[in-house]
């Protein structure tokens, strides 16, 4: 007869006494490095394409490569802190690139209307646009004090965005159990250590290839003595024997960004090609062939230097005709569609408003939790953030007056809180977050409060910067908390970590933007800044510019009609067909053909490789390499711009 079994006791585990690795120096440092690199890269990519890739998944992949692969000690929750930090830093780039270029676009608009610029362009036998593109540093001038105000507004937005959303965690994640698809996908990567390391390797290969490619293409611009030249675009129109205004062009500079973006989006991105065909192969050729161009503009287009003769002269005029039609007809229609689509997206989120208000009521009834940040710290942070936002508004336009700036700051902060919850619920349910729509509403609220003066517009844009950064931070915090919930992280640690690094992103993105503004004119290829153009269009409709000549006034009037036509189409398509169709097609009409065609090529490649090698191959190899293209090329482009500016500064220093 056997003895009765002794009660089971677990043997003591060697790790039982040790706390598991979570908030470690290595994890946070890696997150900061990855976050900063991605912010620099995605500021470039976002200005070029109108979207970026969420940092969470890329940093989670890299985290496995570095923490487990190189340091041999990473844990799931440590890698979760790494991705929380990286995403917290990178997410602000969206808020900055959607709104801040509005101010640069306004500066360019002023230059376009200036008699000096027009005279300089005539003297150089250039159109005004060509002259402006050649002199970005003389056109996009924003005072340093004002840049400080932008930085303060974006910092206030980053901190307020995190603090406003913290009380909603329990409600949205534990009680309502919102899906947050990206947060769940990141948790899946965090748990798949083996696949994570393989993806990390492919990501690094993609980054290295993109850096090499971009350097090869861009280095002759920095070192003119180098013997090779690679064009920025591959113009197939000439090779096919068709006029230059019928654009068939592939992007070379920034081409891997477009290709990678298309690959990551896959089949769904092919719909962009429909908008591009309508814009570039129907509308633009029709405008040129029917001569829908005002006489004075036609005269400027034909002002080609006398030295350019024969076929070259014809090609130059064809190019200018296409450029005029694209800039003044196709693009305003596309911007209008973006605007209408954004407004429709906000209308479609209206049911979320009821959810947001319900969520707030239930949070109040429930009280706090020991897992969350302390309420004292939270309210203190909110008060400090509000003060910084008010100071930013006042520094931006003191002529508006303390009382009105205070009113704008109060309204914007209240709207920011509500918008944050709406965007988080939308993200939680659908993975979409209508950031630029929220920025648009902020501008309309503040413009109504402050009036249509130049100061009023300035303060409105500053408040929109804060709201856009805040809503981005809020939805990212919630995605990260969902990921943390799934991998067993402590919410308070994640919240504190996000709060500690949230200020880094806006500064890095703003500095990158300022650097790029010295080399490129926003709103033009390669940095087209679509969302900022849509916001600028809304401002133009509400508060039209006053200082313009006859031609510009007539073009502005026509542009307004096109905005309205596009907005109507965007509203009907998005409200009727759903899914943000108006935004996508508007974006396709707005972006240059080189970007859309290369992007569509990426989408086609994704479809082909999935058919040939299967879905797993696409996820493990194709997508990480494509994400690497975005990170690597953006980073290399920004470094090249920095090197070029340093070269010019050294040359002028040597000359003086």
């Amino acid at each position, binding site marked *: 007869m056997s003895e009765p079994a002794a009660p089971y006791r677990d043997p003591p585990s060697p790790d039982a006494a040790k706390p598991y690795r979570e908030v470690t120096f290595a994890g946070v440092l890696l997150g900061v490095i990855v976050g900063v690199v991605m912010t620099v890269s995605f500021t470039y990519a976002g200005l070029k394409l109108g979207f970026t890739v969420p940092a969470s998944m890329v940093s989670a992949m890299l985290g496995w490569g570095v923490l487990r692969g190189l340091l041999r000690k990473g844990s799931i929750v440590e890698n979760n802190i790494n991705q929380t930090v990286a995403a917290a830093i990178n997410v602000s780039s969206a808020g900055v690139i959607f709104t801040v270029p509005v101010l640069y676009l306004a500066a360019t608009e002023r230059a376009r209307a200036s008699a000096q610029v027009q005279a300089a362009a005539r003297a150089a036998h250039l159109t005004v646009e060509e002259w402006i593109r050649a002199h970005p540093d003389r056109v996009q001038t924003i005072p340093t004090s004002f840049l400080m105000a932008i930085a303060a507004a974006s910092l206030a937005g980053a901190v307020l965005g995190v603090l406003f959303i913290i009380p909603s965690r329990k409600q949205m994640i534990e009680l309502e159990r919102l899906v947050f*698809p990206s947060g769940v996908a990141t948790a899946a990567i965090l748990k798949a250590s083996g696949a994570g390391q393989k993806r990390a390797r492919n990501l690094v290969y993609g980054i290295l290839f993109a850096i090499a490619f971009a350097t090869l293409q861009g280095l002759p611009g920095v070192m003119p003595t180098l013997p090779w030249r690679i064009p920025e675009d591959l113009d197939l129109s000439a090779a096919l024997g068709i006029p230059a205004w019928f654009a068939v062009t592939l992007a070379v500079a920034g081409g891997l960004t477009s290709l990678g973006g298309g690959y990551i989006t896959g089949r769904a991105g092919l719909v962009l090609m429909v908008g591009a065909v309508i814009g570039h192969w129907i509308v633009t050729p029709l405008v040129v062939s029917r001569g829908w161009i005002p006489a004075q503009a036609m005269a400027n287009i034909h002002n080609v230097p006398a030295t350019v003769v024969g076929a070259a002269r014809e090609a130059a005029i064809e190019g200018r005709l296409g450029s005029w039609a694209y800039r003044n007809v196709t693009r305003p229609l596309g911007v209008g569609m973006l605007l209408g689509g954004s407004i429709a997206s906000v209308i479609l989120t209206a049911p979320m408003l009821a959810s947001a208000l319900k969520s707030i009521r239930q949070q109040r009834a429930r009280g706090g939790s020991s897992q969350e940040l302390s309420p004292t710290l939270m309210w203190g942070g909110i008060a400090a953030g509000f003060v910084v936002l008010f100071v930013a508004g006042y520094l931006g336009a003191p002529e508006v007056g303390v009382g009105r700036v205070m009113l704008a700051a109060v309204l914007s902060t209240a709207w920011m809180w509500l918008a944050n919850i709406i965007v988080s619920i939308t993200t939680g349910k659908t993975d979409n977050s209508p950031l630029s729509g929220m920025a648009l509403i902020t501008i309309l609220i503040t413009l109504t409060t402050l009036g249509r003066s130049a100061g009023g517009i300035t303060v409105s844009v500053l408040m929109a910067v804060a709201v856009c950064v805040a809503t981005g931070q809020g939805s990212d915090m919630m995605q990260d908390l969902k990921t943390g919930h*799934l991998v067993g992280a402590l919410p308070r640690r994640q919240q504190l970590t996000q709060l500690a690094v949230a200020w880094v992103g806006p500064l890095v993105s703003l500095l990158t933007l300022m650097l790029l503004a010295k080399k490129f004119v926003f709103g033009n290829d390669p940095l087209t800044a679509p969302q900022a153009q849509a916001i600028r269009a809304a401002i133009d409709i509400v508060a039209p510019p006053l200082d313009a000549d006859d031609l510009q006034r007539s073009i502005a009037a026509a542009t307004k009609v096109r905005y309205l036509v596009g907005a109507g189409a965007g509203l009907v398509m998005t409200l009727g067909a759903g899914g*943000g169709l108006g935004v996508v097609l508007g974006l396709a009409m707005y972006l240059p053909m080189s970007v859309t065609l290369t992007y569509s090529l990426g989408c086609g490649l994704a479809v082909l490789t999935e058919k040939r090698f299967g879905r797993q191959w696409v996820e493990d190899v194709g997508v990480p390499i494509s994400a690497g293209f975005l990170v690597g090329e953006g980073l290399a482009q920004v470094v090249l711009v920095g090197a070029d500016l340093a070269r010019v500064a050294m040359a002028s220093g040597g000359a003086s």
Partner: protein
Amino acid sequence: MKRTVATWTLYAGMALTMVGGAGWPPSFNAVLLVGVVVLIAGVVLLRRAGAAGAEGDGESASGTIPAARDKIPALVTAIEGLIERAEGARLDDVARRPRARSARTSTRSRRRRRSGRGATASRATRP
């Protein structure tokens, strides 16, 4: 078939609307009117075909990203599966409980499960 016709009607409506809005001097002309009518017809057909919202964008935290809406049912199922698996074995549960030493199939594990201890501990969620 219905969906394809509806989608292309929508695109044709958009093209006509855009051409109508492109004229110089700008005017609200007949082409624009026809375009708007065709556009609305496309929307109505699309809704009748039950395909509204089937494709489009997601303006994600980082911008306007066209998203594969037609893949969403499969995505939601996959996500629900992941959530169920993850929530069944959360790390804080693991941290609070003594670690299960042996594999799931071992006699001790089976005995423990019968006695109701350590049922949620899983290797998969251990950091």
